[in-house]
């Protein structure tokens, strides 16, 4: 144990320095979020008392709507992706039918297409469909785009389940849908959570698409809202509330993270495989 500590000592020092540099901006954000302007100007670096919790109520009144919008869009999109992708992945993984390989390749090829290419026509399309300023303008494309990678991951997982299970169900006269709901879904729960979280991360962070398709400020998502909020409060030199807003905007995902840490890390790494 002692020898380990000696071996690890230098590593700890470097990692701690990297950690401090990484976390300092966040620490500064939290400290400043409790300051009024007098404290901000006269004690820029330090922690000051009293803590001004009113900064949080102030920021909350301004950005709660954006968080609600993002929450609705993100939740529905994630469940939508799970619903659409899991059934397709199941079909691709467990059935043989003419054109299976070709159709799967059609889906895979979409991983190569950058979002920036489709931006303009997709925008004109949803405009023509009259979807601007609705939740659907975000949810439908998010489900459509999100399912691609989800099908890719879920298919290989469902394909790795033992065939005997499905065979036995078939002998018992179970329909396709029954073996999907009673066998494939329950056994895929962990991977479904990972896929859902990956989607939540992508949707929650998306900026350009909502910026383009949601001109109405009341329907903004958190990313678009926080930029406008930041410019407004920064312009008014309301530093405390501005930083309180940043903290509030970060809380939903941090909470989700602490409840689903294992799946979250898996989701982050597999999200990276999205080439």
């Amino acid at each position, binding site marked *: 144990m002692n020898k380990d500590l000696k071996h690890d000592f230098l590593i700890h020092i470097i990692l701690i320095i*990297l950690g401090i540099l990484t976390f300092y901006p966040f620490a500064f954000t939290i400290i400043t979020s409790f300051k009024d302007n007098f404290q901000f100007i006269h004690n820029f670096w330090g922690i000051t008392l009293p803590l001004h919790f009113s900064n949080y109520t102030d920021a909350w009144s301004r950005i709660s709507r954006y968080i609600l919008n993002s929450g609705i869009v993100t939740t529905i999109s994630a469940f939508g992706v799970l619903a659409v992708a899991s059934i397709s992945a199941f079909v691709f993984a467990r059935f043989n039918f003419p*054109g299976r390989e070709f159709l799967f390749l059609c889906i895979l090829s979409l991983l190569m297409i950058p979002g920036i*290419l489709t931006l303009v026509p997709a925008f004109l399309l949803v405009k023509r469909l009259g979807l601007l300023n609705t939740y659907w303008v975000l949810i439908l494309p998010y489900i459509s785009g999100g399912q691609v990678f989800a099908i890719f991951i879920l298919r290989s997982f469902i394909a790795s389940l033992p065939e005997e299970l499905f065979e036995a169900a078939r002998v018992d006269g179970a329909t396709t849908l029954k073996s999907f709901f009673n066998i494939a879904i329950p056994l895929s729960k962990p991977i479904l959570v990972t896929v859902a979280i990956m989607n939540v991360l992508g949707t*929650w962070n998306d900026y*350009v698409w909502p910026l383009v398709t949601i001109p109405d400020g009341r329907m903004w998502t958190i990313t678009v809202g926080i930029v406008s909020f930041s410019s407004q409060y920064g312009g008014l030199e309301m530093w405390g509330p501005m930083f309180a807003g940043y903290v509030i905007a*970060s809380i939903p995902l*941090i909470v989700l993270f602490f409840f689903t840490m294992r799946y979250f*890390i898996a989701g982050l*790494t597999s999200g990276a*495989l999205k080439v």
Partner: protein
Amino acid sequence: MVNDNRRSILSEIIRKKECYLLLLPTFLLLLTFNYYPALSAIYHSLFEWDGANFIRFIGLGNFINLLFHDPTIPLSFLNTLRITIASLLINLTFPLLAASLIFHLRNLRYAYFYRVLFVIPMVVPAMVIFMIWRFIYSPTTGLLNQLLRTIGLEHLTRPWLGDFDLALYAVIFVGFPWVAGTSTLIYLAGFQNIPPELLDAVAIDGASTWTRFWKIELPLIMGQIKLIVILTLIGSIQGFVNIMVMTNGGPGEATMVPGLYLYRNAMYYNKMGYACAIGTFLFLIIIVLTYLNLKYLRSGIEYQA
């Protein structure tokens, strides 16, 4: 015979109609929101188009304009080149160092602790991080200038994001020291896949840390390195959100990048055809780079192994 075959495929398709029916939602969505826009973008790159009524076929006119007549294009691609090189240097060093350090900790509980620690910032929305850094760089109250004043380097203070020469580098510097990202996790996964017997054998041979890193570990995580190179390339070529919210391409056009320029052409100038041409051009670059990367770096691994 051929006819027979066709008939049997057809009957097979009818027999399996349930499969196609279940795939229908997936393909209806993809056709509407993915295939159609992608094809439409490539098709409309050949037109002068305001996105509504005015549309005129101009062949490769947009591409000729883009390659030879538009001064913003070379400027924005030069910026992308700078960003790409910087991002590659960053992603191939700092996260690799962090992952390697975490992997070599003997105390596994600490290793787990650091891993989780460096994941937490990834959960903070990217936009919040950009906003915090926008504040860090702001001229009067910004953290960086305050720091310089506090340590007596007042003469170095400047409006970082408003400086023609430094703005791009200021944007690249966001997120320093860049260890809390997906790259670290990917490298770590690579290290954990190295057979422990191999490392034990090297330890018995008494190889130095450096030799071990260059001769054993690096070749064995080539797959992860290749992945990170592709991700970084694709990310820096089409990414522009960070630029958009921090400098919006300014000052002047000092930090303009192709993605942002595409966005401007579409949303501000109503030049939808030209925007589609820029998008198509970026798409082609990404395909070529991905192909080269797969080819070049794959043979690299085989050579090393």
